[in-house]
């Protein structure tokens, strides 16, 4: 339950914060949520990772599908991912997830230390 709560809260807060901040707002969101709803062990990374992974995947997909993936195809050629837009969405989501996961880990650890 706590796991699901953390995941949803991370995604929601990441979405709201980045309306006002640069991309690193997702790190701040994951950190904050983890301090409030700390998780243990591997979960402290995986859950915020999943939260932002899903958020970014959804955001990227919906922005891009509305425009027939015109830009996504070009960026997927540039990076280079052989023009594979799904792969570009996955890479995007992974990068967001990685940032959120690591700051989530830090948040859970901060909470743990503040108690000890």
């Amino acid at each position, binding site marked *: 339950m706590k796991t699901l709560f953390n995941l949803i809260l991370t995604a929601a807060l990441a979405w709201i914060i980045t309306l006002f901040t640069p991309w690193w707002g997702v790190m701040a969101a994951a950190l904050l949520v983890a301090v409030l709803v700390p998780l243990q062990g591997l979960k402290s990374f995986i859950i915020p990772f999943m939260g932002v992974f899903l958020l970014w995947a959804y955001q990227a997909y919906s922005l891009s599908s509305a425009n027939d993936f*015109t830009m996504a195809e070009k960026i997927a050629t540039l990076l280079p991912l052989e023009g594979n837009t799904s792969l570009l969405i996955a890479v995007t989501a992974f990068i967001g997830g990685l940032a959120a996961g690591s700051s989530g880990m830090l948040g859970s650890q901060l909470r743990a230390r503040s108690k000890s």
Partner: protein
Amino acid sequence: MKFFKLLVLIALNAGIFYGLNTKFGSIPPLGKFLAPSQGVWQNESSETAEATLWLPGLSAPVTVQYDENLIPHVFAENKNDLYRAQGYITAQHRLWQMEFQTMASAGRLSEIFGEAALNYDRGQRRKGMVFGAEKALETMAEDTEIMEYLQAYSEGINAYISELNQADLPVEYKMLDYAPEPWTIKKTALLLMYMTDMLAGGDSDFEYTNALSLFGKERFNFLFPDYFDKIDPVIPKERDWSEWQVSIPDTPADSLALDQLAETMEKPHPDNGSNNWAVGPEKSYSGNPILANDPHLGLNLPSIWYVMQLATPEQNTFGATLPGALGIVIGFNDNIAWGVTNATRDVKDWYKITFKDDSKQEYLYDNTWKPTTLKVEEIRVRDGETYLDSVYYTHHGPVTYDETFISKRGGEGYAMKWTGHLGGNNQRTLLELNAAKDYEEYKAALTHFLAPAQNFVFASDQGDIALWIQGKFPNKWEGQGKFVMDGSNPEHEWQGFIPQEHNAHIKNPERGFVSSANQHPVDENYPYYVFNDGYDTYRSRVINEFFRNKEKVSIEDFQALHNNNYNLMAAELLPVMLDSMDTSTLTPEEMAIFENVKNWDFYNDIDDAGPSVFETWFDTLKPMLWDEFSNKDLALDRPFNFQTVRMLTEHPDDPFIDIEATPEKEDANDLFLASFKKAAAQIQEWSKEHGEYHWGPYKATYVGHLLQDLPAFSRFNLPIGGNSGIVNATSEDHGPSWRMIVELSDPPKAMGIYPGGQSGNPGSKHYDDFIDRWAAGEYLELEFVPYGEELTSKVSTQVLKNEE
């Protein structure tokens, strides 16, 4: 131990933040770049939606109707509002490109790319690009009306920039991780210099000087004559100039400075050129004059042109704009249409400078020492130290080459004298043309235009057609400026300029049409000395023949001529090559290739193999013939195609034909055979990988993104015929950058197209949506509506208002 874990996590987070927020080499900062809230995903957008936008400084609301091609039709109450809106709207669609081109012009690319661009930037500074822009600014500053519009235009661009956040930036800024700076009037002047350099920045003075010292005067004149017998000049040969009172400076008696330079700066591409023409009422199918233009430039995305209708209650103009400059550059209004081709002339000369000592503070002139002016160029380098480049200015111009730049000698230098540094008011010419109603107003508008000299073609609804060759041309003594001159000798200086009224021009000629295609402006009878390195000798003759052979001309004829693939050079050379071939020595594979070119009809069409064979054959043959010009220690230019053909067909035993590296004595026939075998091998090699060597795939025309043809943002393998030297002058990466046809009916009927799209955003469907139609030879109908009227093809409307 527990705190150790915390420290590791803090370090990890810092590392991830830094790693995803920082650009590494050419890899963009991935977090910033890919975040859906601010990165490239935000550039996934095609349409300009209905909107009311805030544009401070407007005196009244401006309405912008977009048609299905994303062409904005701008309706403003007055010119100040009009140009303010033009700046805003252009920035909305082309911001990155407009800024990038001015940074390239100013030699500031190192600020974006780091050290890799340093040599380019030094070259730009040393040839006085900023100096020229500042001179133009000085001239424009005296023109309060133009300054007011330039200011409004700048403010329009800046209003757009100021409302951008990271998410809205064009994708190139995100890739390269930088941000736009405010627009200035100087940037407009820099953009105009960029065009001047592209079109009038070429010369071969060092190359010719080297050739002169290598081969001697007689041979030089044979290889590089001022005129050819077959030319068909812009101003028809029938023109009689005898009524003019003309004085031409005497040629000085002393000899030239035969200095040798191993290397020179990169020059504008030789395929930069253009066609334009107009027919008068008696030759037009409808009795209305018809005008056409197609400037041939590098094929780039975003395109160099941006099409707009710009209207106030007093004037209504439509055509191609240059993002960064005011008004329409090539276009039409209710009464007139105009177009330009490059009127190349040798307007850039070099003077050898003898410095008193290595401090370069003084240089020799007329037996005395004159002081130089030092301009220290500060080139900021991204992730590196600022580079300071000392450029010394003489009264001739900047000392471009000295021992710190390309030239290897100390104590000497070469100063540039260029009409690009004279400081013209080209903006006034353009704005006056936008508003011009007849021939007299067109003629008056041109007088402010100094460089790059252009053949301004003109047609009006009063039935006039005309063509002025307009620029500021030095009145040269015979041969002046062909070679490097002596900067200490006053007689070597430009002695004045050809008076404006003596610029060659023609109005309503008897033959019923005017045309230009970068060929000789006039024949030898023109009283002034005319010289340039590289006039067209083929397109012009095809165009003029086309019109001479037709009683009446229709718009379809104009379209056919734009897309005409007839290769006149091949028609004049290939029969001689074919006749000479001893086919008994060819292998069956070579024979098959030979058959393809033998049966060819001289049209460079996409599904024909003949042009692939001929072009490869000629490209192999030319360096083989001019092997004397492949010299590591000397910068040299090979003779032009016209003279190459002449040499091969009329002087087959000339010593130049012989290949120096072989013991045998070759004649033209030997070269034909050897080059054919080499070309055939090349074609077979290509075929192995790509299949049929039809001209379309073989030439493989592409339109490349301004960032070194970045494949993701470029378009490749376009099915379009032609080549350089052909009326459809589409080579691999150069060609008709805007094709326009206007009939001066009431109201005018117009069509146009360019290889690109109205949006500069690679994520937009309008980024490259004209390209396929352009390649197929099609046109967009340009819907020219009266002021304020609704377009039939309207897709959306933006209203610009001076209130939030």
